[in-house]
């Protein structure tokens, strides 16, 4: 039995992998002490081999017997398990976004991450949704209701929020503003993918891939099919679990 734990900035993800299949998975909001949450999960499977990834991986390693890998490797392994031919992965989580390129054998050849800033991440979308009075799901649906968008110039979460406020005060309907925010984020992510280069399809992982409107806009920008896993947020945790199972075989 192998467990992959992904301690993200917003959520904690866990996958239990046994006999070539996911037998259990869990996605919960990170509390103030995410490593205690993670340890509580691990206590339920005391014999499992554990690999941690994500922002909190080193903290967890101080409290439990486990290996760590980066989110980049974890997403590469996880995405490749779900889509064996994939060569380009876009992962957008709560705090950062990244593009990972793989060779034909699935090894990472290069990657790009956004820096020091919430622009184009899940957190950014959350903040914009809140300022428009939507929950996350309704925010995505609202953006799909209209074809029109007003320009959002800033991708800085702080400045964009004040742009949203000023659009609201101009009497622009919330759905239009929601559309605008989605267009801006899709544009930014598309530019990041284009800079890395991509093939004939793309795997989109991370919690933000749950937003169907964003996926559709991105597909339109990049003009290639975008493959979204059934549960996009657990791809990293899956990759971590797989890393554990494979390194055991190598030993």
């Amino acid at each position, binding site marked *: 039995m192998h467990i992959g734990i992904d301690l993200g900035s917003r959520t904690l993800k866990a996958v239990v992998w046994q006999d070539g299949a996911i037998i259990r998975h869990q996605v919960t909001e990170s509390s103030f002490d995410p490593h205690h949450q993670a340890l509580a999960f691990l206590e339920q499977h005391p014999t499992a081999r554990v690999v941690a990834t994500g*922002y909190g991986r080193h903290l967890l390693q101080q409290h439990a017997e486990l290996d760590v*890998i*980066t*989110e*980049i*490797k974890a997403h590469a392994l996880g995405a490749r398990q779900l889509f064996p031919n994939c060569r380009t992965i876009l992962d957008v989580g709560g705090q*950062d976004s990244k593009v990972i390129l793989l060779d034909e054998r699935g*090894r*990472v*050849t*290069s*990657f790009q*991450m956004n*820096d*020091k800033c919430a622009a184009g991440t899940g957190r950014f979308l959350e903040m914009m949704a809140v300022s428009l009075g939507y929950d996350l799901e309704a925010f995505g649906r609202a953006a799909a209701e209209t074809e029109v968008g007003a320009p959002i110039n800033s991708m800085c979460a702080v400045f964009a929020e004040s742009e949203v406020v000023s659009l609201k005060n101009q009497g622009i309907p919330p759905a239009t503003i929601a559309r605008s925010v989605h267009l801006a984020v899709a544009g930014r992510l598309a530019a990041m993918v284009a800079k890395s280069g991509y093939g004939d399809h793309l795997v989109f992982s991370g919690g933000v891939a749950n937003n169907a409107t964003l996926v559709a806009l991105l597909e339109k920008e990049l003009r290639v099919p975008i493959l979204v896993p059934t549960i996009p947020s657990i791809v990293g945790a899956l990759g971590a679990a797989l890393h554990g199972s494979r390194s055991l075989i190598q030993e």
Partner: protein
Amino acid sequence: MSEAFQVKSDPELWEKLGMDVARFSGMPGMLTTAYTNVFLSQKNRPAAMAYFDGMVENIHTGRIHEIMAVKESGKPVIGTFCVYVPEELIVAAGGVCVGLCGGAQGSIADAEKILPRNICPMVKSAFGFKVGKICPYFQAVDLVYGETTCDAKKKTWELLDRYVPTHVMEIPQMKRERDKKLWVEEVKDFKVAVDKISGTETSFDDIAAAIKTINAKRASLQRLNSLRHHNPSPISGKDMLLIEQIAFYDEPVRFAEKVHELCDELEKRIADGISVAPVSTPRILVSGTPMALPNWKLHNIIETSGAVVVNEESCIGTRYYKDLIDEGSTTVDQQLERLTERYMKIDCSCFTPNDERIDQVIKEYEESGAQGIIDYCLQFCHTYNIEAIKLSEACKQRGIPFMAIESDYSPDDVGQLQTRVEAFIEQITG
């Protein structure tokens, strides 16, 4: 170490230098802690590093006393910010050339009271050190000799001149014959400015001796860098970077001697199979913008993530010591021309075109036995940032793993950088 490492204090000296002593008195303690964590925690360091540890202990005291003694004898003490300013001519006049402080987050808030926030952290840090009166070197210099290698620097010199006399050397941005003519004239002006402080004109013999001294200093660093390329590494990247940083404030003859002592020890280590990391340790070349003391951020992240830095293609690194001056001149004019030719070989990204730098990075990659390149760009350094595109293309063509990083001195991106560096190491090791 027999006695605990401690960066020394000398409030009386600092008072005399007109420093903000109350504020500065916290600095030695902070540096002691940082140095202990970053350097003294390393395992199996060469014994000859003790001298360089001592240079850090004496950074605000012993070395300042030495420099003040030179100054009081009427010789020039000149502060610089760039490897294009010819230190040979200062040494020829019996003076001291010192690379000024500009590598710490602590002085940036001082600078941002005046300068815009969105400029290079090194320029802000340096300016802040002077404005806040928290750098003994800045307080000790007769004048600062700036240059025109970047926009942030050349415009900041105009403001810095209000706090300390600041001269500016025009460094051309292309390397044609007409640029060389201008450059030689600038070097001659520099000589005049230096000689004016001591009141005597440096002679052919003075210059010849100084060229020999600085060539010897650069050659000692070449020897060290080539030994350091051995796999397994006989010395850490952090220790090498520290020595490259100390090269900018130590006395050159003594420094070269101490570097050779270290080299002798490293030769013995290599023969005995002693190293700081096993052969299998991933080897990283760092290229790009300078890392002024105490900027050890990237090296520390790389080496605490299980890799070793095997080369710095940087101003504080090979760009400082890869070229020597021809010693065969017979007239002063010829000396200055040979000197200029040597300085023209420095491949800073402020030049266009600058393709020789791309070739140089690849050459150093091959010589150092590196397995990947991390290109380091100080935030807002447009020329290095843009040049990284060509470097990345050259690496792609040759299948060299490459990653570009842009960062400043603040600790807030350490978590992200750590993830990127670890992922890069995973990429190298497969």
